[in-house]
């Protein structure tokens, strides 16, 4: 029955990819509407009811634009780089469990594309590879703003990748597994503290790790206040200054898909994913992810942008020591818990 599992996996993956692309389109609408509300504006409201057709109109507009390649660009790399960014972005969602196994037509359909035992590592690795699209695009554009944006992005992603990875180590120590399925199963247990019965969500046992993960995730996805690689007031548009039309939108889409994937990941790792007070299911995951997405927009509306040296200082002088401290503390508690101390 190996082929059957493969086909089911493909179908789930196909559905997931399309859902993700649709969500991404409406994420742009959501961001623009929420941001507008926060800034005493109305936001897109002309295309369809509440401007709901705006993402489609934007997509058509971007497709119809001219695809310009600058004369002194490295042509091949310039053309491929946005695709690399875009193609890698949704892959992270493949390991996120969307629910328990579904039984349909006598077939077990697991509601995730791939249950791999190193899922967390896989997601982190994808984040690292995704930065190639940015670096190559910035380098190949033959523009100094792009180059500076790409350099900033490289340094930023490498630094925050480290914090992101280390902040998760605490969770991994507690759950004892790198598989998201196992981490989720651990969180679905109840935690009894005297009269209180709480869910065993890792945000309760790992609040510091959660905060670090959130900050690093914002930096990892190049969003405000860490949006230095594309700081429009300094670097025009950063690494995608020279891109136009649909190639430009590939970067744009990749950023939004990354935001959604990171939000789903944060919800799964720290907030118990599909676990909820009543009727566990994918809707709980959606609500939690939506909260994170709202948080992204909220940050953008509120905070100024960091300077490059401050950004690096924050990562290496504050967040990294805190992450290491968290690992040490979690390790000690764990050892004490199993009676090794």
């Amino acid at each position, binding site marked *: 029955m190996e082929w059957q599992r493969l086909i089911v996996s493909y179908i789930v993956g196909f559905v997931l990819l399309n859902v993700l692309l649709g969500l991404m389109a409406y994420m742009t609408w959501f961001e623009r509407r929420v941001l507008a509300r926060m800034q*005493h504006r109305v936001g897109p409201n002309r295309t369809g009811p509440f401007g709901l057709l705006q993402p489609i109109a934007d997509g058509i507009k971007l497709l119809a634009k001219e695809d310009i390649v600058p004369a002194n660009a490295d042509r091949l790399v310039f053309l491929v780089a946005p695709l690399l960014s875009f193609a890698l972005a949704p892959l992270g969602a493949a390991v996120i469990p969307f629910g328990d196994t579904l039984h349909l037509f006598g077939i077990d359909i697991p509601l995730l594309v791939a249950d791999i035992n190193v899922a967390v590592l896989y997601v982190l690795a994808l984040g690292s590879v995704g930065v190639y699209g940015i670096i190559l695009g910035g380098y190949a554009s033959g523009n*100094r703003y792009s180059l500076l944006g790409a350099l900033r992005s490289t340094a930023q992603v490498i630094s925050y990748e480290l914090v992101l990875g280390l902040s998760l180590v605490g969770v991994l120590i507690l759950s004892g597994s790198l598989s998201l399925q196992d981490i989720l199963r651990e969180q679905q247990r109840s935690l009894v503290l005297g009269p209180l019965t709480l869910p065993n969500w890792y945000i309760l046992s790992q609040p510091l790790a959660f905060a670090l993960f959130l900050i690093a995730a914002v930096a990892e996805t190049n969003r405000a206040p860490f949006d230095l690689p594309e700081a429009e007031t*300094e670097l025009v548009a950063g690494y995608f200054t020279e891109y136009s039309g649909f190639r430009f939108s590939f970067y744009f889409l990749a950023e939004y898909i990354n935001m959604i994937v990171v939000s789903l990941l944060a919800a799964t790792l720290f907030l118990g994913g599909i676990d909820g007070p009543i009727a566990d299911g994918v809707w709980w995951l959606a609500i939690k992810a939506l909260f994170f997405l709202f948080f992204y927009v909220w940050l953008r509306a*509120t905070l*100024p*942008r960091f*300077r490059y040296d*401050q950004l690096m200082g924050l990562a290496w002088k504050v967040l990294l020591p805190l992450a290491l401290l968290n690992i040490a503390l979690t390790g000690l508690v764990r050892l004490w818990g199993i009676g090794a101390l």
Partner: protein
Amino acid sequence: MIDFSQPTPVILSEVRQISPTRRELVLNMGPQHPSTHGVLRVRLTLEGETVIACDPVIGYLHRGVEKLGESHRYAQFVPWTDRTDYVAAPSNNLGYVLAVEKLCGIQAPERAQYWRMIMAELTRIASHLVWLGTHALDIGALSVSLYTFRDRELILDIFEKFCGARLTTNMMEIGGFSREIPPDLPEMVREFCRYFPKAIRQYEDLLTENPIWLARTKGVGVIEPEVAINYGLTGACLRGSGVNYDVRKAMPYLLYDRIDFEVPLGTHGDVYDRYLVRIEEMRQSIRIIEQCLDQVPTDGPLMAYESQYVIPPHKNVMTTAEDMQRHFIWVIKGFSPPKGEVYHAVEHSKGELGYYIVSDGSPIPYRLRIRSPDFVNLQSLPYMAQGAMLADIVALIGTIDIVLGSVDR
């Protein structure tokens, strides 16, 4: 530095050169760039993100305004002053008409003087709002700009009510105002004064104690008091360094000596202090406006006494032969001030705005020179940019508060 004896293409070819041994990158920022506030061009030499050299290149909005002034009659030049610093048009009008009035030896009636102060202070607030919004936007605080522009609308509404125009108002005239004050205008201004302090608190909530804002502005672009004086800085750029010089206090014009207000001063001379100074200036402007509204006579003439220098009132033109003739001469030939030269400065939202006029007794100025504050203030950019990061440059351009129409003239 740029060698002005060489033609421009030499500068462009320099921009294309990278000297790989010194690991430097020349970055041409502007004239088309989102945060150079118009068409300022800054040639940056970078090593990594650190700025080694910074050369502002101006002139992309040069329209020869001074020369235009020397070929137009005195009253015809007032609309041109609107277009120098186009975010603070009434203040520019004020500086010019006061200079011409000083040259002719006439003075606007008391009521007009109060209303000139009200309009000038409203302009200061409007201009500071544009500065605050764009400055915060440059540093990445997105929402502040929309809040400030929302509140600037209220001021523009007042201008529109008064003279029909919002941006280039052509509001002040030589001798006072020729338009009557609309009856509900004082209440409109009062309502704005009641509302606006709340709005300032809102901006301050977003910025003043925000750790990222502090990190981006404190200790950045420091100018010591003596350096500021040597550069000839005026306005908040000078007062941020702690030098107490405000034209309204130092050389009172209009009726500022009757008004009780304070001149806010900074201590460190960095971007943050200049931010605080300008925020406090907006509060003081509200104080000035409220006092003016309390003191202004409710009726009385708005135009100076009928002399050869002042356009006669419209009603008299229609009813008396003398005024019709005077009006005809004033419009067709213009008026001829006495021979002499005059300099008059006002405290513009950006600093000391001075008009220097040389009259040879003809209806056209022999020489007209505008001392625009942001042109002078901009010269301190290379000094402030020493050892700064690339991201600081946009904060520095913002903190100087330039409007290229006024820099290039």
